[in-house]
């Protein structure tokens, strides 16, 4: 009996082990499916999706008077309002906004001329904002501009880049915590069109290969076609 009980106990123990083994396999399968689902989710670029309300940000402009916050041709902010950051939400219900995220080492360099041409074509109907973000991390061994360490240094690099590229697009500079870049998942370069009511009308993929200016312009056409 004792032996039989021992055999039975042995059998129970084996089943218990088998069950534990099955449970573990189940956990592993579940975890791997979870990972696979996360991978699938990653195929969609993060950042605000088309149709969502554009997340607000308030950033320092490179210089004043480039921004059109009312129906006048150029806003003449009074002196006491100077140094206020430029807030994306301030354009809501006034103008569609074309957001251009990039840095001096990004693909923007190659597409600057085409972007400037688009800006000139739509400047009377769309507020363009170039959001200068942190410099692209170069691959190991490659030469690239040093990432700015202070907000002033970041402004200097942004200003030099805008001047060198001949961009007349109003420029705001992302904060040192890279808040706007992160919320828009914009590194290394990315385009958005925000419709007048504040919703995302177009979001390109973040790119190192080249900006999708064709789709960007189509979105601009559609954003400006809607009745104001």
């Amino acid at each position: 009996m004792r032996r039989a009980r021992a055999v039975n106990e042995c059998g129970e123990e084996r089943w218990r082990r088998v069950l534990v083994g099955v449970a573990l396999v189940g956990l592993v399968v579940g975890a791997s499916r979870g990972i696979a689902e996360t991978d699938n989710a990653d195929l969609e670029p993060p950042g605000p999706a088309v149709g969502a309300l554009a997340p607000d940000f308030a950033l320092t402009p490179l210089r004043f008077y480039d921004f059109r916050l009312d129906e006048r041709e150029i806003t003449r902010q009074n002196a006491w309002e100077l140094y206020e950051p430029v807030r994306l939400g301030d354009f809501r219900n006034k103008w569609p906004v074309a957001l251009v995220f990039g840095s001096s080492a990004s693909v923007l360099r190659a597409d600057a001329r085409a972007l400037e041409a688009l800006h000139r074509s739509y400047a009377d109907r769309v507020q363009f904002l170039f959001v200068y973000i942190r410099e692209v991390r170069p691959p190991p061994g490659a030469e690239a501009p040093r990432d700015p360490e202070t907000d002033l240094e970041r402004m200097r690099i942004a200003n030099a880049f805008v001047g060198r590229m001949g961009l007349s697009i109003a420029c705001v500079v992302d904060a040192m915590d890279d808040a706007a870049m992160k919320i828009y998942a914009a590194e290394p370069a990315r385009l958005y069109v925000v419709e007048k009511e504040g919703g995302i009308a177009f979001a390109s993929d973040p790119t190192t290969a080249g900006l999708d200016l064709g789709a960007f312009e189509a979105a601009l056409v559609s954003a400006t076609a809607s009745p104001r």
Partner: protein
Amino acid sequence: MGALDKLYQRYRDRVEFLLVYIREAHPADGWSAQVNPRLRYVKQPATSTQRFQVANSCVTDLQISIPCLIDSMDDATMKAYNALPDRLYLVGKNGRIAFKGRHGPFGFKPRELETAIEAELAALEGAP
């Protein structure tokens, strides 16, 4: 600034021009009459980035092509050159002051600077 820019275009291949942006002489929140409605009065920049913004607007709006440097927030350069509200200097190739203009606005005379530049260049050409 138009006269200075003309000087810059004329002599830029022989003289290094530097525009040093210093603190605002008549800020909106300081000693400012604000009598000229065509001028934009800005608040005194409180941080280096604000000073950068104002300097940037200044050179852009006034279409100044002279390379611009920005004084530090302790106004070290402005103090060393006693330059408020504006002042012209010419530094010789040997590093010594060759010309010191009077304070602006009444003493700010680009023509005097031009005369000094001509004299300095002539002296350099005559030197062995």
